[in-house]
């Protein structure tokens, strides 16, 4: 990182128009709603520019200015609407206060390289705004369903009561349903049984195959790769019906000839089917890690008397571990989120969470699905944190410093 760029205060002739311009943006929204966008824009620009002038020239106290703008905006919000509008307006006030001082003090330059031109600085922040919008696009749908999971009604609808923040409109009953209903609990258990075992199978077979595939002497590499990736590219509904026949026959064989328990056979069928679907992800991630793998390390190990097993587990494995883990996570999610194949191959005893959700969406609307999703989001955040920690650990192992 470059040394911090020295910052300096900017002239009013820069601060006022810029702040006013961004104020006009807010005015445009409010103005369009109340008849004229143009008047709104002008008013917005004028208000924010006046605020900037007042704060910088007259008040000259940043802390006090912050309170003035938050409370001022809040009051205006309160006059127009309820509590939510007050909070939103307060946040808007906080933003404009921050913006004015950010511009005035030149803080926007602090973290950038000193030689950048004004255009490049503008682009830098413009680009970040665009990226922020895309992130909002990515994350909003997830955030939107979280409040709905507390809906007191049985629909995916924001009721008027919820918007008023009326406590009666919220309830934990869908969470209660999830934790007490046998169907949900059983399907959760099934998912938690099937997904890890399927993952272990796809990861172990997939890693071995990826190691083989990455060797330069591998014959028919392209064809084999295409075959191993194919579960990802065949439309799922075709895979599901095709595999159904195979697994029915396999199941019959295992039950009648091997005398295995029906329920156990059911699990084996779903697990094997999910393992196949997860394999492409493992192959892809592990081969990608192996592309950067220095083969002279294995030769060095062999030179020093390590047998192939030792070499694999002591030398190769720790280094390709991140690829193996992320492949495993993809495989896990594939199984954990898979509905089409399990619908065909599974029977009652193997009903998984997505299957139960699918029935829920089709047969009876129930925000229990959203409660489950909320819980799963929290669990995923936990899992991602673990992955992140693992990744940092592996980087330390590789001796790679965070560049």
């Amino acid at each position: 990182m470059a040394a911090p760029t020295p910052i300096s205060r900017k002239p009013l002739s820069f601060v006022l128009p810029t702040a006013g311009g961004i104020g006009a943006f807010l005015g445009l929204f409010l103005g369009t709603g109340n008849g004229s966008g143009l008047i709104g824009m002008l008013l917005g620009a004028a208000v924010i520019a006046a605020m900037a002038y007042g704060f910088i020239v007259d008040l000259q106290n940043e802390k006090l200015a912050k309170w003035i703008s938050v409370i001022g905006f809040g009051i205006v919000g309160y006059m127009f609407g309820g509590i939510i509008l007050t909070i939103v307006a307060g946040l808007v006030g906080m933003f404009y206060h921050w913006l004015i001082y950010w511009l005035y003090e030149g803080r926007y330059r602090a973290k950038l390289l000193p030689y950048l031109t004004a255009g490049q600085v503008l682009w830098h922040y413009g680009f970040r705004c665009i990226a922020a919008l895309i992130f909002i696009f990515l994350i909003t749908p997830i955030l939107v369903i979280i409040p709905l999971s507390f809906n007191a009604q049985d629909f995916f609808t924001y009721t008027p009561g919820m918007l008023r923040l009326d406590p009666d409109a919220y309830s934990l009953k869908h969470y209660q349903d999830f934790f007490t209903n046998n169907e949900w609990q059983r399907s959760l258990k099934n998912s938690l049984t099937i997904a890890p075992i399927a993952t272990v199978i796809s990861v172990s077979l997939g890693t071995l195959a990826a190691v083989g595939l990455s060797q330069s002497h591998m014959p028919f590499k392209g064809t084999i790769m295409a075959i191993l990736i194919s579960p990802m590219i065949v439309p799922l509904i075709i895979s599901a019906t095709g595999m159904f026949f195979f697994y029915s026959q396999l199941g019959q064989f295992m039950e009648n000839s091997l005398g295995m328990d029906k329920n156990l056979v059911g699990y084996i069928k779903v697990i094997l089917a999910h393992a196949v679907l997860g394999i492409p992800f493992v192959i892809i991630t592990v081969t990608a890690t192996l592309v950067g793998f220095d083969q002279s390390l294995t030769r060095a190990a062999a030179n020093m008397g390590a047998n192939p097993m030792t070499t694999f587990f002591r030398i190769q494995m720790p280094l390709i571990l991140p690829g193996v883990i992320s492949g495993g996570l993809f495989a896990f999610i594939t199984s954990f989120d898979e509905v089409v194949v399990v619908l065909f191959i599974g029977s009652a005893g193997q009903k998984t969470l997505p299957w139960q959700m699918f029935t829920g969406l089709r047969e009876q609307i129930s925000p229990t699905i959203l409660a489950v999703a909320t819980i799963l989001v929290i669990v995923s955040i936990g899992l991602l944190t673990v992955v992140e920690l693992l990744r940092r650990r592996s980087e330390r192992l590789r001796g790679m410093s965070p560049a």
Partner: protein
Amino acid sequence: MSDSTANGLVLAADGTPLKRSLSRAMRRQKIRAFMLVAPLLIFVLLTFIYPIGVMLSRSVQNDIVPETLPETVRVLGAWDASSGELPDEAVYAAFTRDMSVAIEAKKHTRLGSRLNYEKTGFSSMFRQSGRKMKKLDPVADAPFKEKLIKIHKGWGDVETWKTLQTYSGLYTSGYFLNAVDARMTPEGMAWQPEDKQILLKLFGRTLVMSLIITGSCILLGYPIAWLLANVSPRNANLLLILVLLPFWTSLLVRTSAWKVMLQQNGVINEVLVWIGLVPDGDRLILINNEFGTIVAMTHILLPFMILPMYSVMQTIPPVYLRAAKSMGATNWTAFWRVYFPQSIPGIGAGSILVFILSIGYYITPEIVGGTKGVFISNRIAYHISSSLNWGLAAALGTILLIVVLALYWAYDRIVGIDNVKLG
């Protein structure tokens, strides 16, 4: 040069010629590499490729007709369909004999539903005739022509026998023709009537929509991937969580979430009305059309674009850009001529991934697609689970698979499958 070159050959330490020793070592390595791959290869071949192959082979199978009506098919072969006259008694007698066996084995209705795909009405004709023909004795009650026509007037229609003759082979191209909005008629291949032409249109729409989805994923994914690759690793990993979180949320939940977002009383419209951008009476129609499908699918598939792009961009040294600029390139030139070409493999990997996945999706289009956002996979699912026309489903699936494989091949040619990296 010592003794190792005694007879002109380079020898290894144990005295065998080096060439042979090397090739043996090479072969051993090949075998070892293959042994590593073998378990998985056998597993995938057995539990995936073989069953899928069997499934897809249904697209040409037609053995149900010659197997259920063996004698009829043989006798009918001699009938001249273009004469415009009904076949003679021999055909009817053979048909009655075949049917009495089929009715006994309860196979006649199955044949009826098979032939109903080709000509509407066969299903009830076989079902109703079956009930009445049960009472006929295939020997004593001859002749049959009049009796059969009395049982169901369909047997007195030349078209019935023409259809039966057309579809009497063990294999048929009928399903594939149906899959491209054509059909086999006694006179040869013909297009379906215009008001039944839908599948080619759906293929086209699936491809166009998948391209648009891929395109919007590139547009939205590129800046994010660039940002991830160009901020400090710690921040990058934090931002990566924002990318992965939706990726890990159930597909069903995300699709429902988009329903909540996009409908007319949904979150987006409510917010737009609330801040006044949109008048209350004139809310935007964002769902149950192409737009809804594109938005929801772009959201669902975006991580598949970002991750490969990000892994490629990570390998592009930032100094290249600075070098280009220091040599006088403008920002745009430096990006377009130096950075962008190096990031193309990432775009390629992401695009192929997104495109292949979006071509096969059907749950999301079904839920948010309305009438104009439906894909060919929806029809495949319909024919598999509702209409039981698996031959047609298999034909559609085969065509889809060929398209995907062609793309995969092109991708492997252009970028190389090794270059895909997911996280």
